[in-house]
Each structure stands twice: as C-alpha cells, then as structure tokens.
C-alpha cells in the first residue's frame, strides 16, 4: 500500500531527517521515556525524537555498563557511543526506573551530547505528586528556554497540545482498524506508523496518517490473516518481533507497549487556563507503566484490550533486566490465564541475535493455539 511508504522512509531515514532539521537552525532533542512531556519540547520549536537502540551487539556500551543492566538502555547508550546521536543538541532522561536513573549518569559521563537533562518523574498520581510534577515540568520548560534561548508561551503550548492530541486521535483510529474481524492493517504496519511518529515532526505525521486513513478502507491486498495476539511488554523500538510473529501465522492486533497503545491512550485536557499544568497532569494520569504504583490500572488496560480486540492468546515479551515489568509478570499472567487465554512468557536481550532462540517458541505457541481453535 502506497500510503505506508512515507512512514517506512521516515523510519529508515530518521537520522538524516534530523540532521536536515538542524540545518534550519532548530535544535533536535532526544528523549527516551514516554513520560517525557514531549509537548513542551515541541512548543520550544525543537524537534523531539525518541532515542532507540539498534539491533546489533552492544560491544561499546558493554565496556561501561554491566551485562545485568537494561538491554534497551544499554543498546541506546551503545548507539550514542557509536556516534549515531552526535547530532542531538540535548538528551532528556527520566527518573521513571532504576535503569534509567543510572543510565543518565552514563550519558553525562561518557556521551558527546552537549546538554543532558533528567526529569524527576513521580511514581504515583496523588494530588501531591501532580503538584510536584507540575513544578518539574515548569523547571524543564525554563531549562529549555535558557539553554536554547527561546520562549515557550502559553499559546505555543496550546498549539502543541492541539497537535499532539490530534496525533493521538489519529493513532487510535488506525489502531482500531485492527479490531475488525478482518483487520485492515497488520501489526507490523501499525508499528511502522506509530514508531515513525516518534522521530518525525508531529504535524507532518498527522498529515500522513490522515492520508493513510482516507485510503485504508479501499486498500487492496489486505494483510495476511493470522491468530489474533496481544503482546504485553515495556518498550518496543523496532518492528522485528512483530514481523517475526506475523511471519509464522500470528497477527499482533493489540499491545500494551509504552510506544504502542499506552502512548496514545490519553489526551491532554485542551483549553485549560494553565496548559503546562494540563500537560503534566496527563502524563501522571495516563495508562500507567509498571513503574507507577497503580499497577491494577495497567492490568485492567491489558485485559480490556484482550477482550475488545478478541485476542486468541498473549505473548508477554520482557526486555531483559526490566525489573518493574518482571515483577508484574506472574500476576498479569495469572489474570490472563484466568480469562482462558493461552500465555507465552519470553525474555529478550535487546538485539537481533536475541530473537534467534525465540522464533521456535513463538511458532510452537501459535501452532498450539491454532490446533485448539
């Protein structure tokens, strides 16, 4: 389908596009946790891009980070050491988990990025936490203004909120195409669309998604049907897993990745007198990641997705050394099993070679469900 091509190009061309952006004398700011209030970066006229790892080995990072550290964080840091992110004017990390807090020190001490910022992210959403995070958001805004000699006005923030909410709404519309009995879009295609939006200007992404939606209904060559699966996990920064699943008879119709459904599920309240407060509030109130105290809300999100998207099974896909998701895993597994869903639990070391051992298990799982069905 032709309307998908620009998303793929944005993905494969992302570093070049970011460098292009810089040529207009506008900064590029890398972020890596979906609790980073992106709207504030956008309102500063910079290009926010999510920092990802790559799927090669992490030899450079291994010299500094131990093998029991988050393999996603290690992979991102490896990309930084290799120079993939030398164009960044700033890198923004979040205190959302132990791995992130400590990886921040790594970037400060060993990367070439000139400005590095750490946002203090509460692990709860009580009123006290909201007040604290509002202040943190204000500090972050002031830091951006100071560092990049710019001013982030309320009207710029309002504009950012409008663009980001629009982005979330469009992502959701496309996501829901997978709810149909015969999905109009595959999991791989969805992820290409979603991921590209994390590294390209949101306005442009919105235009591309609208165009895609116009053409989607009349698309020819529907994706190959497969067993409807939900993948539950932390972050996903590449399409390889979903491609693998969909190459052996599965179809990823739903997920609870922070770069997947958790990314667009909740909007910022529009038209608030204090747009910064509204932005900050959205992040603490969104469908929680496992580092937040409200774990039951995340479980509810997963189980409801499983029902609404009528999945046949769940793959729990854990990136190695992600403590908070590993602690949640046994209980979530039990909840899903209690719904009568088959569950496959996998731990993955973030790299292409990490997939090798998983393929047979995924294949066997899909065959097993297929046999019962």
């Amino acid at each position, binding site marked *: 389908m032709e309307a998908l091509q620009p998303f793929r190009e944005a993905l494969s061309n992302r570093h070049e596009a970011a460098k292009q952006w810089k040529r207009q004398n506008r900064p590029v700011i890398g972020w890596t946790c979906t609790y980073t209030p992106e709207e504030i970066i956008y309102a500063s006229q910079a290009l926010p891009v999510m920092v990802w790892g790559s799927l090669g080995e992490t030899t450079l990072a291994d010299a500094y980070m131990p093998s029991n550290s988050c393999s996603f964080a290690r992979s991102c840091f490896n990309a930084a050491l290799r120079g993939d992110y030398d164009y960044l004017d700033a890198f923004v990390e979040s*205190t959302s988990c132990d791995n992130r807090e400590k990886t921040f020190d*790594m970037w400060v001490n060993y990367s070439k990025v000139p400005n590095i910022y750490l946002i203090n992210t*509460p692990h709860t959403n009580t009123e006290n936490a909201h007040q*604290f995070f509002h202040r943190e958001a204000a500090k972050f805004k002031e830091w951006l203004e100071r560092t990049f000699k710019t001013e982030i006005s309320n009207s710029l923030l309002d504009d950012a909120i409008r663009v980001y909410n629009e982005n979330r709404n469009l992502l959701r519309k496309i996501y829901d195409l997978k709810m149909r009995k015969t999905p109009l879009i595959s999991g791989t295609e969805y992820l290409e669309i979603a991921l590209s939006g994390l590294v390209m200007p949101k306005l442009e992404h919105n235009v591309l998604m609208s165009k895609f939606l116009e053409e989607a209904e009349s698309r020819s060559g529907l994706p190959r049907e497969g067993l409807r699966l939900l993948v539950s996990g932390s972050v996903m920064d590449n399409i390889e897993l979903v491609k693998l699943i969909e190459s052996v008879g599965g179809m990823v119709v739903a997920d609870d990745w922070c770069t997947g459904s958790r990314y667009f599920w909740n909007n910022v309240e529009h038209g608030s007198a204090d747009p910064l407060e509204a932005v900050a509030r959205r992040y603490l109130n969104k469908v929680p990641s496992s580092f937040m105290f409200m774990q039951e809300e995340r479980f509810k999100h997963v189980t409801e997705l499983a029902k609404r998207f009528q999945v046949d099974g769940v793959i729990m896909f854990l990136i190695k050394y992600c*403590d908070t998701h590993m602690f949640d895993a*046994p209980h979530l597994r039990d909840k899903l099993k209690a719904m009568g869903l088959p569950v496959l639990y996998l731990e993955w070391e973030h790299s292409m070679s990490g997939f090798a051992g998983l393929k047979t298990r995924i294949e066997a799982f899909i065959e097993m469900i297929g046999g019962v069905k």
Partner: protein
Amino acid sequence: MTAVDRGLKSTSGFYRNYVKKSYEEAHRAKTEKRPVAWVSSTFPVETLQAMDVIPVWPENYASVCAARQASVELCQVAEREGFSRDLCSYSRCVLGSVFGYEKNLPEGGLPKPDFLAATSSACDTHMKWFQVASRLYKAPLFILDTPYNIGGGDSEHLDKAHVEYYESQLNELFAFLEKQTGSKLDKYKLSHTLALSDWTSRLWTEIQDLRKNVPCPMDARDAFSAVFFMLCIPGSQDAVDFYTQLRDELRQRAKDNIGVVENERFRLVWDNLPLWYNLKVFEYLNSLGAVAVAEVFSHTWTGSLDPEKPYESLARKYLPNMANSTIQRRVNIILNLVKNFHVNGVILPTNWGCRMMSIGETIVKDIVYKKLGVQSLIIDIDSSDWRIAGEAQVNERLATFLETLT
C-alpha cells in the same frame, strides 16, 4: 607497637543477642496483636517507631537467610512461581519464604504484616516487591514516593521542591498510620524517637571515624553486622546502648593500637553489599594482609534529625541516600573515604539483581583513579545468590587485585 585481636567483645554473639531477638520480639508482638509492619530499606522507620509499630525488615531477613545458606532454595521457590531469576535476590528469597512451601524457615519466617511501608528511594524493586507481598497477604501498602536527588547533594544541599514533596507525603503517611493503628500520633513521642535516632547516628559516625586509626580496630565483617541498629531500629534506646558500648571498646583498642591484622598492607573501601552467604571473605582478605576499613554501606544511613523540625529533617536524612542520588554522590563518598581512611584500594562489588548497585561503577573507578591515583576492582557478585559467583572465584579475583597494588 601493634597488637592483633580480631574478636571484638561488643559484637561477639551479635546475631544471637540482637538480630535473632528482634525476630522473636516481632513474632511475640504478632501473637499479642500489636501492629507489625514490613518496612523497606530507606523508609523513614522513625515514623513507625513513634507510633509503636514493630518494624520488620524483609531485606535484613534475606541477608539472614543467605548467612544461614537458605537463600538460594528460597529464590528457587520464587522462580518457580514466575519471578525471573534476574530479579533482586533479596526479593526472590523473601517472596520464596512467603509462598509457604518451605517449612523450616530461618527464625520461623517473617511475621505476617498488618501493613507494609515502602519507598522508591532505595530502588523501584522494593516498591514492586512489596506490592507483590501486599497482594499475597491482602495487607495494605503505603508507598512513599521519594523524588530522585538529581543534584547529588548532601542533606544541606537539596532541592527545596524535593524536601517539600517528601514532607507532604509524611502527612499522608501519618494519616495512614493513624488509620492502621487506631491511635493518634503523639508529637512528643515522635520528637523522642527522632532524638534517639539522631544520637544513634552520631554514635555510628564516631564508630566509623575510629576506623581511620592505623591499625584499624574493626573489620567490615563486624561493621556489616553492627549496622543493623543504624539501619533497622535507629530510634531506640537499644541502639544507643549498643553503639555506646561498641564505641568505647573501639576507643580503647585505638588507644592501645590493637588492630585486626598484624601488618596492614592494604586498607580497602568496600562498596555496596557483602556476600552475605560468605562473610568469611573478609577473613580471607585479612589473611592477605588486607582490611576493609570502610564500607560505603556504613556511610549512607546516618543523618542528623532535629526533633523541632521532624518532617523537614526526616526528608533531609533520607533524600540524599546514595541509592537515591546521581552517581556523583557515591563518588564523593568514596573519594572522602579513600582520603580520610588511608585507603589504597577500592572494591566495587556489583549485585546481579540490582541495577542501582551495578550501573555506574565504571564511573566510580575512573574518577577515583583520576583524582587520587587509587585503583578499584569491579567484581560481579550477588549478595545472596551464590549461583552468580562462587567463593573460589571471588577469592581469586580479590587476591589478583591485591597483587596489582603492590
């Protein structure tokens, strides 16, 4: 002239006299229907003590199980229940003891909590682990969300917003405690507890300072036992009494030049945790002429408390905890220890299931060498799971490192 005497009178029989007793006391409290709470590392335990709640420390319990060689078996129980082997061994060990498959648990197991209190300050792992326990026991859990000490400053150099957020949650905490215990907070009792905790901190600091003496009068093995009071029950008369006795004994030893080894060839700083299942490693170091004269662990739990400003001073005591701070804080602590304790080598043990203790040791190593010319050894271990690194392997790494220092 130096005399050698390894055994301290104060710490002789420490486990039996104090640790074991604390578990017996907690079990008795339970039968007497007094409130018992599970408390996580770096939680402001003084608040519970002031409300007559009996605190028990799952983290301490894991180290007890490891010392009794029971931890791996319990970890395996948790692994069978679906908890990844890469998770913190403390948490696996304690959760393993909760599922109820093992009958002969050390100290009869942990008493069932009436409620649990955890904070994100030491790590997110504690909070997640306590969530699991809270669900298993159907007991309420209070979580104190500690902002991360980004500046890495000490208690005098903290972000005001962090202190205020912490204080606001102490209000929530006391409301929770009043509900759980059915009694009102007695402000006088809180002041009294804080005063005792402050005194405990000062005594513990004096004790550590005495170890600057050459020869060092106390080894890491004793310190890792004796820190129990500082860590678990700081706001108590028992803590003050014990530390007074220990300080006096060390003063005398320093005066008489009594040390742990004959000729101190190596004075070491030991970071993070020991191998609880193999505390003999410190004796092995002694046999090579080495003494661990300072543990970073012994230098991160103290903090002065002002009974006149209970909330603010609790915030200022707990916020700058090393685990809750950027790496600069750990680096500064170690630089000071190396300088002030006449140290010529640093041991940086990582901890397999612990990100806070594992990531960043390269930075420590680099900076300590650059600033002071002192070498460090990063050694991959686990505090309680001996499957990660065996005794012979650890001893060999240590011995090789010491050779490079000569």
